[in-house]
């Protein structure tokens, strides 16, 4: 029988136990930079947008 785990770690602690750490952190960061903050840009102080990562 072959079994191949994904090369990831996961955090424990109840509801977050099933979440993978690094991909999750990057995904949360991307949500802020690509979805939430741009949706508020119209009301934020005018600044030069910097490239976002994630």
């Amino acid at each position, binding site marked *: *029988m*072959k*079994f*191949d*785990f*994904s*090369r*990831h*770690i*996961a*955090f*424990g*602690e109840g*509801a*977050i*136990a*099933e*979440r*993978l*750490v*690094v*991909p*999750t*952190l*990057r*995904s*949360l*960061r991307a*949500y*802020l*930079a690509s979805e*939430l*903050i741009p*949706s*508020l840009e*119209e*009301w*934020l*102080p005018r*600044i*030069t947008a*910097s490239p*976002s*990562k*994630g």
Partner: protein
Amino acid sequence: MTTPGYERKLRRGDKHIDSLDEAVQDWLDRGGYTLVEKTDPQTGYQIICAEIKEPPDPCWPLIIGDAIHNLRSALDHVAFDLAIAHQQATKPEQPISAERARSSEFPVIPYINERTGATGDAEHRFDSAAGSKLAGIHPDAIAVIKAAQPYHRGPQSETHELWLIHDLDRVDKHRELIVTAAAAYVQTFALGGTGFFPQHLDRRRGSSTRHKGR
């Protein structure tokens, strides 16, 4: 032009995430754990265990906490910057008041009232929190923040990005995040002599059908 605080917080978070990623990959490359197959003598079942060869670095939870804290702080910086921008647009001669600056915060409202367990008052909880935390922000921006709240997902609000950031930050403040060295995510399996076939993880939000085993 100065980089806004929320952008600097996001970049700082990137550094933590990158350093964690590197540390985890190094650990995996060193063979941090191996898989062992055993037969349960009582049931005859095949058991697959992850045997930890090298314990994960105890610093990992601290790095995770730092990364999460930077993301949460970025949200609060957004709220404060929105207040400053509106103040400058409406009363440019007056600086933002100290009280308003102190109470400024990006509210994150879940579906379930954590104090009472009620589920029907989320909108009221948002409006109440926004009254102080988002005071002095353009009403249209408040409407956008309200529309982005986790409670709109109903019972699934704990899967919302804002809730994860908010809740993980709270967990990290009061107790250490627990890092599990290995976890199996199996979406499908096939019988017939070839065993399990874990598929690529589906990272799309709200579409998880994973089953977990350790």
